[in-house]
């Protein structure tokens, strides 16, 4: 407002008067009908998002509370899932473990591979080849998850025996990779399948970020005598870091919530085994999908309670990612 008073100088008076009300209105631009409609529309859209979010949270919390207040076991630590028994006993420990472990495996595989593909497309491949690979990755993103599930169950599971045997031979001593020869319907297989499913989204977003690295930053490194890899390390990756984190979070969100593909590959059990290679385990989304149809009212509320936990985990993950990005904000490429 001060600036408006200074520049407009409405009348040559000894002391600057406060801006006239009419000027104030035009400065805000709210007097024109087009502006008013647009402001209303965009504000309405913003509010709508909040309302939807609040409605989902309220629904989940209410139904979850109905179930949890009946729960005789510890909701967070129990390995039981028997909400219709008397007394009802159920807990999310197995589901939380399965969801987090399979997503972590998926991220550990998908993020490095995706960043590698994105760098190859943008900085190494000849333009035509890069375009072709980008197109194929886009196609991968368009494959429905049920198809991934079919492929996972019919192709991936039977073909993983070699990998499982290798892991058992060389890393079996850790206990995490011990294999007793069972079918590969395990959390590791789910993680591998999820990695393939989230690869396209992480690759696509990373590729766009790497493509936007200003030419002058790359030339700065080149002119210092940097090799191609050093240019990528000095200019491209630091510039793209926050974008890659965002991309990974998009992928993680999908991995946490993936339902059909997991349900088709995993043979669900309600226990946690030390080895990632043992068949069994479960995830939130898979458990809800496979139990919801036959569940009673109480069973549904219990499933909704587990859904609430997944919702909270997703929120925490996103919040964490935002904090990581914000922490290095002043060093980000954005203020160059």
């Amino acid at each position, binding site marked *: 407002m001060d600036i408006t008073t200074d520049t407009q100088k409405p009348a040559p008076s000894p002391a600057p008067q406060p801006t006239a009300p009419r000027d104030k209105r035009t400065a805000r631009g709210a007097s024109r009908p087009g502006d008013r409609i647009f402001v209303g529309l965009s504000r309405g859209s913003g509010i709508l998002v909040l309302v939807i979010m609040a409605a989902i949270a309220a629904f989940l919390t209410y139904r979850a509370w109905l179930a949890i207040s009946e729960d005789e076991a510890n909701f967070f630590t129990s390995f039981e899932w028997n909400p219709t028994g008397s007394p009802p006993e159920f807990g999310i420990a197995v589901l939380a473990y399965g969801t987090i472990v399979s997503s972590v495996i998926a991220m550990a595989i998908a993020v490095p591979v995706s960043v590698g593909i994105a760098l190859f497309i943008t900085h190494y491949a000849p333009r035509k080849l890069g375009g072709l690979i980008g197109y194929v990755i886009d196609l991968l993103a368009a494959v429905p998850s049920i198809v991934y599930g079919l492929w996972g169950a019919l192709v991936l599971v039977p073909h993983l025996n070699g990998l499982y045997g290798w892991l058992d031979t060389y890393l079996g001593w850790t206990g995490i990779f011990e294999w007793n020869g069972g079918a590969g319907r395990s959390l590791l297989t789910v993680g591998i399948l999820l990695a393939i499913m989230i690869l396209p989204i992480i690759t696509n977003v990373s590729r766009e970020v790497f493509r936007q690295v200003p030419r002058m930053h790359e030339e700065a490194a080149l002119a210092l005598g940097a090799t191609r890899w050093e240019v990528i390390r000095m200019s491209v990756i630091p510039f793209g870091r926050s974008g890659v984190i965002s991309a990974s979070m998009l992928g993680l969100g999908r991995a946490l919530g993936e339902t059909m593909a997991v349900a088709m590959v995993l043979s669900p059990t309600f226990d946690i085994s030390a080895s990632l290679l043992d068949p069994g385990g479960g995830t939130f989304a898979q458990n809800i999908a496979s139990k919801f149809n036959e569940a009673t009212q109480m069973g549904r509320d219990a499933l909704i309670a587990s859904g609430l936990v997944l919702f909270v985990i997703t929120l925490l993950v996103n919040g964490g990612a935002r904090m990581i990005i914000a922490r290095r904000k002043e*060093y980000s490429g954005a203020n160059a």
Partner: protein
Amino acid sequence: MAKRIDVSGLNAYYGSFLAIEDISMTVEPRSVTAFIGPSGCGKSTFLRTLNRMHEVTPGGRVDGKVMLDDENLYGAGIDPVAVRREVGMVFQRPNPFPTMSVYDNVAAGLRLNGKYKKSEMDGIVEKSLRGANLWNEVKDRLNKPGSGLSGGQQQRLCIARAIAVEPNVLLMDEPCSALDPISTLAIEDLIGELKERFTIVIVTHNMQQAARVSDRTAFFNLAAVGQPGKLIEIDETERIFSNPSVQATEDYISGRFG
């Protein structure tokens, strides 16, 4: 340290387009040579052939000879990366690495070349920043991001980064065109000091600047748009601006075209 550049019969292409044709000249060590000429005459392109940055552009290619003392930069088996460590460059727009601190920006080139002890590195960083007349302004914020400095300070930071690796030649591509007059003056003073240690080549659109900072001036021109740029003449700066031997140079300098 400073080396002589001897260019002969140099052509540079973008794809099939011949951008500069048949350039031959000598750049003396420990002196400032300015390139002037109208836009599109190829002076920046020529500058970028001197540290093999031209071929980084897709389709960019060069033939001819550039001798740095007795080494042909375009000879067989010469690694362009090694050339760029020997011939430093400062760009038109200040381009410090935005994700690095002031200190790390200066140290960036050294870290590419090898391992240094912390104390050695501190010494070189300070010496380079002093060399770029920036030390007093940034000594209290060496760990702040380089992109937080003003435009003129950023450009001097880029100069510090370039001289930290002790190149033999320093190329400057319109280093002041994005800066205000005060920052420009600071850089021009700096160029005067740097020529004691380096061979300096500067491209500029500002003829007063060429007259102020350079010992020798080369005038580039092109016959028409789409034609290759050519070196018209190179001579003592004083002669170019008072009594050039080619009519086109005099027309350009006196503002009759370009």
